[in-house]
């Protein structure tokens, strides 16, 4: 939350200014789409540690942060990359090796937790997950939950509907019990969008996923974007702008900032990278090599792009103007 008028930062500055070791951060996008990859890479570059991460269904961004050892704990619904990773590789590896603490919720529950955070209320009710281990099995134990102030004391609380009127019950359950999921209010949310103005008003093209709720729920928001545009351009279509300026702290101009994930209307995901990444991410040694070569070995996202892609690859994934993706791109 920042009501200033010029919020333009470089990514180096923004990450330095707003992300600290141990912060609770929330990451926008969905599996292979609009992940704030440039920002995730910069977090890795600046060697941020002990992050507590919140995501609903995030693939690439979360996986690289985890692989780099930046993440201590994660609360998440799904970590996969569709056809490119049934389960994200670093995520899988680190949990199996006991190096990452995880707390599981459903996708809707994570969305509701961000929504509750954005609304300034402590929880949201749902009928999802009744009877499942999402309710019964807790990843974080009570000691951690009591100790660490920013973590909710309870993973989930069950509650009887106080408005219950048996006569009007439209569904078949014999009691009317709700699952309350706790609000999330991250220290920082990082998202990548197509357009923003210098005051922070942000426009997402295509699906917004839970980015808007994630941003509103957060104390600070870093927006990386394909284009920084004039305020008046955004004002022509107010209904298309998703995040008001006063929710945003830093606006960073990063073309192809979601690469290798897709950015609707700008570029597709890169199937070549994602296939290549499979082999890297299953092996800690190879992953460290990848980090040294491509992340620590480059100063910023533009150097990273130059090193990892070439003109042809960039051309291959360029989005068609009409459909918003790369028509006929080789994806096998």
């Amino acid at each position, binding site marked *: 939350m920042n009501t200033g008028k010029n919020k333009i930062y470089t990514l180096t500055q923004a990450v330095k200014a707003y992300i600290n070791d141990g912060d609770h951060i929330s990451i926008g996008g*969905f*599996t*292979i*789409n*609009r992940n704030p990859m440039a920002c995730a890479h910069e977090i890795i570059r600046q060697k941020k540690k002990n992050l507590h991460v919140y995501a609903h*269904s995030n693939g690439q961004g979360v996986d690289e942060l985890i692989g780099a050892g930046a993440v201590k704990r994660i609360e*998440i*619904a*799904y970590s*996969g*990359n*569709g*056809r*490119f990773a*049934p*389960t*994200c590789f670093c995520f*899988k590896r680190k*949990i*199996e090796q*006991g190096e990452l603490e995880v707390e*599981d*919720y*459903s*996708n*809707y529950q994570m*969305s509701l937790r961000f*929504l509750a955070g954005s609304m300034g209320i402590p929880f949201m009710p749902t*009928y*999802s*997950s*009744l*009877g*499942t*281990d*999402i309710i019964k*099995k807790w*990843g974080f134990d009570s000691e951690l939950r009591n100790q660490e102030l920013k973590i909710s004391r309870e993973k989930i609380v069950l509650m009887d509907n106080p408005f219950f009127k048996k006569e009007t019950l*439209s*569904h*078949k*359950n*014999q*009691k*009317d019990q709700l699952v309350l999921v706790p609000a999330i209010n991250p220290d920082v949310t990082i998202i990548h969008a197509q357009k923003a103005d210098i005051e922070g008003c942000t426009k997402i093209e*295509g*699906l*917004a*996923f*839970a980015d*808007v*709720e994630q941003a509103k729920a957060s104390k600070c928001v870093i927006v990386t974007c394909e284009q920084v545009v004039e305020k008046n351009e955004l004002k022509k279509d107010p209904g298309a702008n998703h995040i008001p300026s006063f929710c945003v702290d830093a606006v960073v101009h990063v073309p192809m900032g979601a690469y290798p994930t897709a950015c*609707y209307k700008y570029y*597709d*995901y890169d199937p070549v990278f994602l296939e290549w990444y499979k082999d890297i991410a299953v092996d800690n040694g190879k992953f460290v090599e990848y980090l040294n070569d491509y992340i620590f070995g480059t100063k910023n996202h533009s150097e990273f792009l130059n090193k990892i892609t070439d003109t042809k690859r960039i051309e291959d994934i360029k989005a068609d103007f009409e*459909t*918003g*993706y790369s028509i*006929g791109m080789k*994806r096998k």
Partner: protein
Amino acid sequence: MIEYTPKEMMVIAAARKIKNFDIVFCGTGISILAAMAAKDIHAPQSIIFFETGAVDSVLEELPLAVSDPRVMHNASNYCSLAETFAFMQNRNTGKNIIGIIGAAQIDQYGNLNSTCIGDYKKPRVRLPGSGGACDVASFVGRTIIFMKLEKRKFVEKVDYITSPGWLSCPDGREKAGLIADGPTCVVTDMGIMGFDKDSKEMYLTYFYPGIDPLEIKQNIGFDIDVLRAKEIEPPLRTELKALREKSDPERLILE
């Protein structure tokens, strides 16, 4: 005699469950293909609804994930995730939604595990997690489950219940407070299972042409009734043609 692969039979068998005007809630992978095939074959006015919030997209290429930008093209609506799942929880709309989900393990009541193999706190194999599957299984009265038929997948007891099936007894869902019915069927590469009207236990309803029901029984880690099973009608020429030429011409999922 028409040649086809088990995967093709599987997709077509699932597609047949989708009726015209149904709203089909899709996850990643083979479930998208079944929904697309239904639209291309016999349910042109069914609406595909992606977990990511795209309603009734025009799918000119097969999406490789629910967040694939291909699902955004010429949709009728974009919803936030919170809005998307609410359509299922809301009984007015939820009752017209059919959900298609998968998992790594399933038990005889159709409870699904997509979280971990082994102990939750120290898993032998970590899986991706629920995603929207738990929500679909909680809210949608008509769920189709996709599974490869393997003994390690069809187990007596799943290691973690990620998505609720019929839980552990005939009225398990009502007792737990779930607001909709449990799964309708399990579509595998060898046959289709339903759940007994009374006991809610899984039984074999259809086996695929050339498959012996006893072979299916052997691939399942719990006792299953296969005596009520019939052979399924093999894929029609028109079904295969639509699937191969329209739904997945590049065979991105079919292979």
